């Protein structure tokens, strides 16, 4: 059975593959900050709230990427405000926010339209990736990449120690908000590829695997992107072969690489000890 040829000739598969590669490339680098700054649960909660953004987008008839970015940014700011109030621990707030937003999102979508493909939003469906989505990915993805690269050393220093960064004239609060905004764009553009429920794993598994193999922050980011790219190719290929949803298949491929990274890192250390 030949599966490679249709993968490379069918335009909708090519589009899906291209979309997946862009997401993997950007998520690997963005994800390093998620891992370093312990934003995994934060990112996951924001991604859950994205479904409410999708619902609003459908209701108001505006672009779904845009409505997700707007709603997630609103939730991120709400969260920062609630965190400063210190009424509840952050994980409690995140838990409430994530599941309340997801539930209200599902309820709204059910009321609005009967035939919407909910599973496609939750777990990704690369077959629905259209030209406009590719544009969103190219523009949003490059914006994230260039912003991270331009502010790289300030972001790394701030992640190591915020007071030290501030003493060296890094505007810490501006960068924190910037990072949050980049996260909302990342979520919006990757919904169709990996799905709302799996965006966080796309962000953390590749950097976590890459951590074992890297010796510098930059190296960790580059290897994370490479791992993401390999997983996307393997995941999308398997997703066609076995007719499975794209998001979970890609994440399963990531998980396999994560497990393999442990014995691999031992070999790395033997070849070139620190």
């Amino acid at each position, binding site marked *: 059975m030949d599966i490679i040829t249709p993968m490379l000739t069918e335009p909708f598969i090519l589009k899906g593959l291209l979309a997946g590669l862009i997401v993997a490339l950007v998520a690997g680098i963005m994800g390093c900050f998620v891992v370093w700054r312990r934003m995994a649960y934060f990112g996951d909660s924001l991604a859950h709230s994205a479904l409410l953004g999708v619902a609003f987008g459908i209701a108001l008839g505006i672009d779904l990427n845009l409505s997700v970015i707007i709603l997630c940014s609103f939730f991120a700011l709400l969260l920062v405000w609630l965190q400063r109030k210190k009424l509840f621990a952050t994980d409690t707030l995140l838990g409430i926010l994530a599941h309340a937003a997801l539930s209200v999102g599902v309820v709204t979508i059910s009321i609005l339209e009967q035939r919407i493909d909910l599973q496609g939003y939750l777990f990704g469906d690369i077959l629905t990736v259209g030209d406009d989505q590719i544009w969103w990915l190219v523009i949003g993805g490059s914006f994230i990449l260039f912003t991270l690269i331009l502010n790289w*050393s300030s972001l790394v220093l701030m992640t190591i*120690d915020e007071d030290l960064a*501030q003493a060296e004239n890094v505007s810490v609060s501006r960068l924190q908000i910037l990072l949050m905004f980049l996260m909302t764009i990342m979520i919006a553009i990757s919904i169709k590829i990996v799905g709302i429920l799996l965006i966080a794993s796309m962000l953390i598994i590749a950097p976590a695997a890459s951590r074992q193999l890297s010796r510098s*922050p930059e190296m*960790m980011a580059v290897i994370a992107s490479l791992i993401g790219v390999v997983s996307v190719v393997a995941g999308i290929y398997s997703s066609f072969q076995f007719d499975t949803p794209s998001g979970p298949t890609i994440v399963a491929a990531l998980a396999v690489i994560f497990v393999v990274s442990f014995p691999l890192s031992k070999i790395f250390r033997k070849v070139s000890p620190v």
Partner: protein
Amino acid sequence: MTNLISAENLTIRRDNKKILDNVSLDIEARDFVTILGPNGGGKSMLLKCLMGFFTPDEGTVKRESTLKIGYVPQKFFSEQTMPISAIQFLQLRKKVTPEELKMIATETKIEGLLHKPLNILSGGEVQRILLARSLIGTPEILVLDEPAQNLDISGQLAFYKLLSEIYEERSLSILMVSHDLHMVMATTKKVVCLFHHVCCSGEPQVVTQDPEFITLFGNDMAEMMAVYQHGHNHSHAH
């Protein structure tokens, strides 16, 4: 003599409480000032105010815009999830020539640590790396926030010895928050006791006999300091 940093009547309020209450402080060239006081008394806040992290609710901080500050933060934890070596950390956002780096590494005794990952270094080693970073670019003033907090006694001794060597050899000022007054007594020129307001300030010998100092730290501390000073003066007599 001109002041490097000059703070006048600083007041900072948080949730209707005065964290700093009408605090004035001048740091001169070649000064060595240690801020002492109970936890939660606004010591770190004062440092951050002097460096310009916060704008005070009342009062003014005057600082040359070109003043080069080297900062050693409080409670530094190396992030386990980030692979970064000591030398990469030192060069992060810093323009440093190989010669300067080599000189500072010798000065702070970190030559052997440069290529090790930051997260495997001991508390004392990390403090020396932070001190080295603060020295890049020849600062006019070093600001240290409880730099020896997480070190054991011998680590504290070694760190303060290193710091006083740097103070002797370089023409810079030092502003430090520290609980370990008995260890910096010999080099500190001026002690400022802070509990929201400046309780007392002046030379260490004078401050430890101040009634306010005794109220704040109790008789035992004052007596311990007196004993230390006696020993110190005594050794000079020989």
